[in-house]
């Protein structure tokens, strides 16, 4: 299947998540994504979280996050600090539909790669820039991380345990994804416009702005009523019980959300708590909400005798919204996600020593134009010949000269692997919950190649 975006060519000058994630989504749906990278400035995801923590050999072709974010892309190395490298980038833009990047505007301006520059090379080009705070404005050139923009957007401030004076940040670069999801939509909107009019345009993604657009509960309340509510932890403004409760085992939890009296009665029945069911403090939505702290105190000790999956199924079978707080392994082997083929098994180049592995797919399924078959992220420089030779018509001599002068390459100029501590040490430090030595066998059994 070619996917709905077959025939679209994207040049990606991305790093880490925001742009690589969104371009992966488009690559999955059939776009040809040509990802540029530098041999001099190694993308950190290439050398982080490597397979089995083994940094020997070509470690830059073994990083988990690189494979996660760059599926279905073609990889070309290019030294943009040299004029010959920039000239090749311009040649690529001249045959592209979309150019996407997530560097600071300062870098893009220094390279002469602004929209106005690219439009001269390819009049209908769509250019997408994703930055922490937006391409123009007083903060435009401020570098940003996920946590920084989660803070700037107003999301972190409101997140935290009830009664706590500290906001709580996500432990992943959360806003990279929020903005990345909006980037996929933005690119599609630009493509629809181009289809109708033949016109390209410039798309300016601010990771902060995209995130602020998803918290109207906070910003509209402040705008209209000039107030901000207290941090509520896992509690809700209407529902109770609504929270995260302990279950049997080490660091195991379940979430429960009760919206109606009927669901409340079902919860009491499943948990065998007749006295709660008749307790006037919990008789209706409002009284349960007013007494929510007491209710939360009562529920934890009862749920802690259950296994989280058993309790989820028991409650859901009685019509109560409940969900296991899934850890890495629950999520990977979740029978629902597995049945929906959410994970996609991708084969890796044999030189990497990485067996075929499952990766998270997409949140959408299109009945007529499904995603293309998953191809692993490129080895460094894997598609130099295909793209520069076959597509741009460089001769073998020109290719050799490019390699000779370091414009292209097949590995980092200064290899600096990141050695993570042994797993035993990571568990001792509390960074990992546990590890299982037979993981390869477990993965192979559920996700055969």
């Amino acid at each position: 299947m070619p996917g709905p975006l077959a025939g679209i060519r994207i040049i990606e000058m991305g790093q880490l998540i925001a742009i690589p994630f969104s371009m992966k989504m488009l690559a999955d749906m059939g776009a040809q994504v040509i990802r540029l990278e530098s041999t001099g400035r190694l993308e950190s995801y290439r050398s982080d979280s490597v397979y089995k923590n083994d940094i020997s050999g070509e470690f830059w072709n073994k990083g988990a996050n690189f494979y996660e974010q760059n599926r279905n892309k073609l990889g070309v190395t290019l030294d943009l600090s040299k004029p010959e490298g920039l000239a090749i980038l311009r040649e690529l833009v001249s045959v592209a539909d979309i150019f996407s990047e997530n560097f600071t505007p300062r870098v893009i301006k220094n390279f002469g790669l602004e929209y106005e520059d690219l439009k001269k090379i390819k009049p209908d080009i769509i250019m997408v820039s994703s930055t922490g705070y937006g391409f123009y404005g007083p903060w435009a050139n401020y570098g940003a991380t996920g946590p920084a923009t989660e803070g700037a957007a107003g999301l972190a401030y409101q997140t935290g345990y009830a009664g706590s004076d500290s906001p709580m940040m996500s432990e992943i670069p959360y806003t990279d994804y929020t903005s990345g999801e909006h980037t996929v939509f933005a690119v599609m909107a630009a493509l629809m416009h181009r289809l109708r009019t033949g016109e390209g345009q410039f798309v300016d993604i601010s990771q902060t702005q995209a995130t602020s657009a998803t918290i109207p509960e906070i910003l509209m309340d402040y705008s209209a009523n000039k107030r901000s509510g207290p941090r509520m932890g896992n509690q809700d403004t209407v529902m109770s019980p609504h929270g995260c409760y302990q279950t049997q085992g080490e660091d195991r939890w379940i979430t429960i959300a009760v919206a109606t009296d009927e669901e409340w009665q079902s919860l009491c029945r499943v948990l065998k708590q007749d006295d709660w069911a008749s307790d006037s403090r919990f008789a209706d939505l409002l009284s349960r909400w007013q007494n929510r702290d007491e209710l939360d105190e009562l529920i934890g000790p009862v749920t802690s005798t259950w296994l989280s999956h058993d309790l989820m199924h028991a409650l859901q079978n009685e019509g109560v919204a409940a969900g296991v707080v899934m850890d890495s392994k629950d999520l990977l082997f979740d029978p629902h996600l597995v049945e929906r083929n959410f994970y996609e098994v991708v084969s890796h180049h044999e030189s990497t020593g990485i067996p075929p592995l499952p990766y998270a797919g997409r949140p959408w399924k299109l009945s007529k134009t499904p995603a293309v078959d998953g191809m692993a992220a490129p080895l460094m420089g894997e598609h130099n010949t295909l793209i520069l030779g076959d597509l741009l018509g460089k001769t073998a001599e020109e290719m050799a000269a490019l390699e000779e002068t370091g414009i292209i390459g097949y590995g980092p100029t200064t290899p600096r692997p990141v050695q993570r501590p042994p797993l035993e040490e990571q568990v001792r430090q509390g960074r990992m919950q546990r590890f299982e030595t037979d993981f390869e066998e477990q993965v192979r059994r559920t996700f055969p190649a």
Partner: protein
Amino acid sequence: MDLTHHISGPYCTKLLADFGAEVLKVERPAGDPTRRTAPFLNDDVDSEKSLVFAYLNTNKQSVTLNLKTEKGIQVLKSLIEHTDVVVENFAPRVMASLGLDFESLQKINPSLVLTSISNFGQTGPYRDYKAADIIEYAMGGLMYISGGYDREPLKHAFNQAQFKAGTDGAAATLMAMYHQRLTGEGQHVDISIQEAVATGLRDVVNNFTYTGAVRRRQPNHSGDLSRLRASSDGHLIPNPGIGTGLNWGVMVDFMDLPELGDDKFNSPSARLVNAEELGQILDSYYLKQNKYERFYAAHEKRFIFGVVQSPEEVMADPQFEARSFFVDIDHPALGTLKYPGAPFEMSGTPWDVRTPAPSLGQHNQEIIGQRLGHTPEDLAQMRANEII
């Protein structure tokens, strides 16, 4: 055609409407439940004064239709004949029970795109399971790694999972529409909110497939240089260059804390050994700082510090101001208020508010009357029969 309610579906159609689509919101005669969801302007519990509803439904038209009646379904089907896309976020069994499954809709309009957003998708063992945002957070894998090391996992405030799925829904709808425009073919788009969360994780499933490790919430090591710190006026997120290389001397000068130049701290291994002492020094240092002063000073040195902004500070943010992010929208019941505006900017086809959120059934006359050719008597009859 927008058959959605609550948040995920309305955010999907808001994105489409705010970038130019004509969106017809079909509500049950009692209205989208979000109309009755707080916060309200001045806490006035009035179905035209819900602030989240007003935000989510800009640029849409509202008609009411009782889809539990034959006539209601008939009117809906005549509208679908001239529609490019239907978006719905009912529980998966509902559309089929109304005779509105994809196959039936395709008979009315062969090139139709139907986008269905649901908790767990249209197939699979959890298909009919109930959920709320917290359930999706938990089952999407984001919750286990959020919160304090020795406390219960914690979700983000409010409805992030719903917004993720809404955004994904809008993107996937346009993918299907792109194909529709090229080939005339319609299709069914199935969006799972659980999967919307599970798609946006880093080092979770991969930790297991690459090393067999199960990640958990991280311990709060006081010596972590990029840890969130309290300042005199809130919180900031220092980042003295962890990923891209750290020049400790420059950092010590920047903070003007010569004691950190001591051998106890000036190498990564020394900082690890003396982490607790380092953490105490950093805590007391930052507590005396003004977060914006440090934020701006850090960026002068290209340290990528971040600042935690309160809603008040977000609305006064000079960067948002320069980009005109907050926009004034005049609404009949709410008056003129500032709303969060464009989630991103497009140079050729800018984000734009043409109309505020509609009142319930505001466009019944225009759409069901004029467009479908029902007479005022027909409309009166439909109203009497509680169809509109």
